[in-house]
């Protein structure tokens, strides 16, 4: 990891997560994705490990371990299953926002007893009276969720709203990615809901949830990039062309070097942003920057890994096409990379 700076506690957690991922996630990831089966057992496993509560502050009912081990966990999981990493991100977003709001619902979500999906501001869901209206086109987890936590628009102000998923119309999607995370279109036809927070509390809750998403999806992409490189290296070591392993072809290994650099740089940005956030500093810009870099790195690494695999890479059996799809699908979530760049323009350059 070249990180130098995990505490012993953090290292312990990460080892546990790595073991869980290797034992319980990796063996089924491809199959679940191909057949679009929901990763319910794996979700339960995350709950058992306490990952949903991990970054939530202790005084809000969480484990208070901060975002750094959360990000590192997302990387581990993202290396095997972008879908599961996204479920983790969504659940932690909801738990984080509900914790900020002091909502009773937080406990169930942080424990994983209820599956929650986050619907961010970018969807423009409107609160009118005590019901929601609007449509969220692509929501990972929504197809199987019990609760939807929505950053809704109440006449220009952000409010945090909880809806029973069954009160909405959900359409399972054949989406580009996240196929074992039950991605769905959610339509709110005047769905009844409960307002969990308003005003500055809602704003703070939603911002915290957004940072979780930026960081978590960035870390998951770092994992996907790492996994793509590992897969490509393994294939290139075995595959013989023109009398020597592909890895001996300068053009092939040079691509790996470039992907490694992009992934390593993205990881530094992710960990840096997580540390800033854990120190209580504003991490919005840093986490968005990390997200953009990590998505790019994951797309690059998966794309090159497919290319290095040749025809094999185009089939579902070598995982790299899945990382490619999940990385591109990540790009459009949370408002998309473009929205991040516009916000960065304002934060970094006052534009």
């Amino acid at each position: 990891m070249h990180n130098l700076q995990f505490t012993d506690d953090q290292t312990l957690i990460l080892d546990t997560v790595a073991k869980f991922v290797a034992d319980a996630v990796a063996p089924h990831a491809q199959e679940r994705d191909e057949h679009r089966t929901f990763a319910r057992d794996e979700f339960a496993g995350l709950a058992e490990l306490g990952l949903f509560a991990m970054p939530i502050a202790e005084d809000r009912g969480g484990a208070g371990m901060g975002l750094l081990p959360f990000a590192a966990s997302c990387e581990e999981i993202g290396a095997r299953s972008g879908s599961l990493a996204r479920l983790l991100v969504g659940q932690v977003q909801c738990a984080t926002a509900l914790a900020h709001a002091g909502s009773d619902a937080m406990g169930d979500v942080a424990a994983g007893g209820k599956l929650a999906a986050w619907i961010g501001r970018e969807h423009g869901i409107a609160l009118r009276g005590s019901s929601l209206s609007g449509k969220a086109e692509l929501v990972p987890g929504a197809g199987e969720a019990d609760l939807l936590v929505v950053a809704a628009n109440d006449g220009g102000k952000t409010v945090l709203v909880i809806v029973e998923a069954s009160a909405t119309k959900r359409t399972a999607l054949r989406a580009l990615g996240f196929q074992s995370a039950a991605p769905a279109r959610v339509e709110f036809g005047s769905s009844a809901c409960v307002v969990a927070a308003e005003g500055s509390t809602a704003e703070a809750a939603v911002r915290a949830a957004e940072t979780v998403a930026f960081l978590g999806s960035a870390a998951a992409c770092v994992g996907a990039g790492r996994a793509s490189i590992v897969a490509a290296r393994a294939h290139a070591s075995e595959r013989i062309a023109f009398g020597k392993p592909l890895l001996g072809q300068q053009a092939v290994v040079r691509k790996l070097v470039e992907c490694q650099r992009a992934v390593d740089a993205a990881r530094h940005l992710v960990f840096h942003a997580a540390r800033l956030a854990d120190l209580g500093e504003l991490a919005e810009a840093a986490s968005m920057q990390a997200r953009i870099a990590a998505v790019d790195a994951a797309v690059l690494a998966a794309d090159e890994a497919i290319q290095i695999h040749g025809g094999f890479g185009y089939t579902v059996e070598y995982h790299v096409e899945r990382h490619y799809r999940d990385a591109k699908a990540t790009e459009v979530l949370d408002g998309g990379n473009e929205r991040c760049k516009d916000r960065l323009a304002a934060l970094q350059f006052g534009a």
Partner: protein
Amino acid sequence: MSATQPQVVDFELSPELAAFRSSVRDYANTHLGKAAEWDAEVKFPRSAVEAAAKLGLLRTTVSKAHGGSEMGNLASCIMLEEINAVCPSTGVTISVHNSLVNSLVGKWCSEEQKKRYFPKLVNGEWLGAYCLSEAFSGSDAAALRCEAKREGDHYVMNGAKLWITTGSEAKLFLVFARTGSDRVKGISAFLVEKDYPGVGVGKKERKLGLRGSPTNEIVLENVKVPAHNRIGDEGVGFTIALDTLDGGRLGIASQSLGIARACIELIRDCLGKQVDAKGRPTASQPDQWTLADLASELDAYRMLTWRAAILRDRGLRCGAEAAMAKSTASRLANRAARAAVAILGQEGASGATSAERWLRDARITEIYEGATDIQRLVIARSLLVP
């Protein structure tokens, strides 16, 4: 096509080719509407291929003497761009049939062989497949291991071919097999009918995209191939394979152009909706710039493709030119598809638009019929080795 008759004057199509393009566009709009369904259900676009056959689109590279329309490579490129701009699964089926199979038969087979097979190929009664790749030889095609042993008036063929486009649907396989130990001169080409005993369709690949086009392993177990089905002399197989791939690459370049164009149109439609009261575009500048760059490159690489096709139609060498066309166009297709997903955002990735399908379909264009690095090798060699 005579060597002096200009096909593309001043970068514009002749009226004949423009009319042909328009007729293919009609075909595509009429018959390829189920592209998304074929993709989702992993279903061969049979009706589309049959309709193409009826319209004569499976015989463009065949001489009139053999029942073809003798329109040549340029016309084929124009046709393939149109078809692939709607359904690349149909596109690759037709590309392989025309650019690889029919082209090879027309150029390298004996008159007798042509008379036996063209009647079935030109009307689509039989589809063709091109069997070069193996599990252990992709880019390095000369490493193939499939064996054909001469025994009297036939060859006994053993081996397995991988990544065979149209594998489960084809009736005629052009198979490259080893008749000698020399890496290159030990390779020969054969016409192998599906019904020959011992020919089996193996594993079907589960793929990222192009899911309407079946890709199979073709297993050859003690297949008796009549000696008169050998194409050309023993040992010229590799030459035939590479020469044919030059044409095939034009087909894939055109497929890439079609995909890129479709993505550019998606982006244009998306940005085009964003206007102010006076109809001026209000879409984000970076998105507009992306559109501008993609559109510029599309025009540029289409010209590279047409240039190579014209050279080939004239019987001139076009290896480097075809490689330039394929390598640039295939990368553009992927860039355009990635941009379309990003710009269309959730609608791009959710399946609500075709953007995510283009992304998946586009990815193969950089891999098959010579991966991008092989194209670069061909181009670099042409520049460095006088």
